[in-house]
């Protein structure tokens, strides 16, 4: 659909307003859905990430707290009043220089009393003011340029003199450890959210496509109407589309009615003009002189225009008719009866040949009558005694061939005879125009009229027309 749209000129072009709105309903829906999916996933992802980070931090802090507790547990004053550890902490990384895990026991001034081996020549500079009882957390730069998370508590050990200031027990760990733990999770979270987003977008696209299916059907139905394959949209439509379809159907009906009225008016006008034209023409032909001649010429011209537009108005109705199927044999029968009566004084015999009875024309009866009637009439005017009309199938087409045994027409004039409004022989009443109309009607049905020399000596007119399918 977008491709088709691109091919059409954008109606908004030239209007100064900038058109940034998506031009397709589907892309509008999909883009809107993608926007909210992306927003929802982003917010959800951030929330999950924050929750996880929180949990990991708490976990980290718990580990630090355990170490602080252990540190307090193993600390005591020796006989000389120095603070010592009664045994080493179980964590080996405290002994590894710059391992990222450190502890330190410091006095109120911040001077380190004891510290882990891993601190090597550094100290943790925890400058927070002393505060009894609570375990606190701080972040500060450590050795090796690392950022440390420090958990510390100020404690007064039982063996210390009661008025002695509390001692600060601190355990620190490199924040990078926290980050290392968060990064794979966040990465996995990002990937899964991305995948979920893509999946949802695809689902939305499919849903939109499915949801807009009726619109596509509307388009196909309209194309069918334009192509003459169906007359109305009708059928089973979703309740949202049904009013649109009903409106379109009414519009089409209204249009057809208007067209029909207009065509009828053209026809009525043309027919109404014929009697005055007959009167004028006859009056002119009864007088003599240049004025009468001028009137006569104008009457002839007017008559041609009337015939031309009348045949055009009729022909315009052609092709709009659906599923029309006209068996050829009855049409030929009717015309044969009529023409034999009209040409009774010329005693021309019309012989119908090769009819299998089933051959049918895909079109309206009136048009077929008009074509075969004009050709047969023409043949009867020129025939010496015999006119044949035969019907055949050829390459899925209907071929009606009309031969006469008259004088025929030189091959060089065949093309001209089919040309519009040319009268080859002014003495034969209305010959040229009849063939031109036949050619025009055949053309509207995608068929053609060809003239040739007849094996009977006269003219052969071969009419190729669309063949109607067998009725069900």
């Amino acid at each position, binding site marked *: 659909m977008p491709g088709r749209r691109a091919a059409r000129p954008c109606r908004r072009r030239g209007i100064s307003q900038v058109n940034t709105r998506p031009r397709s309903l589907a892309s509008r829906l999909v883009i809107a859905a993608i926007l909210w999916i992306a927003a929802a996933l982003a917010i959800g992802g951030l929330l999950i990430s924050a929750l996880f980070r929180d949990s990991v931090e708490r976990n980290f802090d718990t580990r630090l707290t355990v170490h602080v507790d252990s540190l307090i547990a193993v600390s005591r004053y020796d006989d000389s009043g120095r603070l010592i550890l009664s045994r080493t902490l179980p964590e080996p990384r405290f002994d590894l220089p710059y391992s990222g895990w450190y502890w330190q026991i410091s006095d109120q001034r911040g001077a380190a009393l004891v510290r882990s081996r891993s601190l090597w020549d550094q100290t943790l500079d925890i400058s927070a003011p002393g505060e009894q009882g609570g375990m606190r957390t701080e972040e500060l730069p450590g050795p090796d340029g690392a950022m440390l998370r420090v958990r510390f508590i100020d404690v007064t050990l039982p063996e210390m003199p009661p008025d002695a200031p509390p001692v600060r027990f601190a355990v620190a760990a490199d924040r990078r450890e926290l980050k290392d733990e968060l990064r794979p999770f966040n990465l996995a979270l990002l990937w899964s959210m991305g995948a979920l987003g893509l999946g949802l977008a695809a689902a939305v696209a499919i849903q939109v496509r499915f949801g807009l299916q009726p619109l596509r059907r509307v388009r196909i139905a309209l194309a069918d109407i334009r192509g003459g394959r169906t007359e109305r949209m009708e059928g089973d439509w979703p309740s949202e589309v049904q009013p649109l379809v009903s409106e379109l159907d009414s519009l089409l009906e209204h249009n057809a009615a208007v067209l029909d009225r207009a065509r009828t008016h053209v026809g009525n006008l*043309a*027919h*109404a003009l*014929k*009697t*005055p*034209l*007959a*009167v004028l*023409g*006859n*009056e002119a*032909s*009864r007088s003599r002189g240049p004025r009468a001649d001028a009137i006569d010429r104008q*009457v002839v011209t007017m*008559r041609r225009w009337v015939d031309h537009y009348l045949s055009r108005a*009729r022909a315009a109705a052609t092709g709009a008719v659906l599923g029309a199927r006209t068996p050829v044999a009855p049409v030929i029968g*009717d*015309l044969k*009866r*009529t023409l034999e*009566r*009209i040409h*009774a*004084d010329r*005693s021309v015999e019309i012989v119908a040949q090769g009819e299998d009875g089933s051959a049918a024309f895909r079109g309206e*009866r*009136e048009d077929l*009558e*008009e074509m*075969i*009637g*004009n050709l047969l009439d023409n043949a009867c005017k020129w025939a010496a005694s015999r006119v044949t009309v035969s019907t055949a199938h050829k390459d899925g087409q209907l071929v009606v061939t009309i031969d006469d045994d008259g004088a025929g027409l030189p091959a060089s004039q065949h093309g001209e005879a089919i040309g519009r409004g040319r009268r080859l022989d002014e003495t034969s*009443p209305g010959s040229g125009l009849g063939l031109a109309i036949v050619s025009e009607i055949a053309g509207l049905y995608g068929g053609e009229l060809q003239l040739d020399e007849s094996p009977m000596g006269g003219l052969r007119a071969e009419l190729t027309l669309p063949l109607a399918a067998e009725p069900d």
Partner: protein
Amino acid sequence: MRLLVVEDDPDLAGQLAEALREAGYAVDVTRDGEEAEFLGDTEPYDAVVLDLGLPNVDGMTILERWREGGRTMPVLILTARDRWSDKVAGIDAGADDYLAKPFRVEELLARLRALIRRTGGLASPVIEIGPVSIDTRSSRVTRDGTPVKLTGQEYRLLAYLAHNLGKVLSRTELTEHLYDQDFDLDSNTIEVFVGRLRRKLGAEAIETVRGLGYRMVRPEDADL
């Protein structure tokens, strides 16, 4: 020959009547469908020129009613509707010919001549009866190849007798066919014209059937 012209356009009706009278026909004109039907049913016309679009009753219906009622006079349909479906319908309703408007009066005359001739069972436009030859196209009459000058009335009487070759025609019948409705019937007129024709064409040209009327016969059929 007496014709009925049924045409609702007064100008065209007048034009047709004038042209047909000039051509030697007795012509009745009506513009109304009901009147046309009545006239066709009651008057002995030799041909009818019938327009289809008429007030009150349309031409096709009139034609069908005439045919159902056993009226057999030749009818030429004159109409603006020139589709073949219209022509087929017209012929099937009982018309003998179909002429689409606009048309030339000459063409209408030619068609009518042919129609009347056909009804009389004559194949050629030139009717030969013994030494007398009548060309219906040009209204020219010869006797033994020599042109004979006839007045309009004389020609009409001769043509009517010739078209009804072998048939005995009463004076009343002849008057009905040779004069239109408005003519005041005087049976002696026919006798006068028959006498003049006999003088110009020879006494044997028109036979008197005592008590019945007149007829023309070919010499070879005279015994019948």
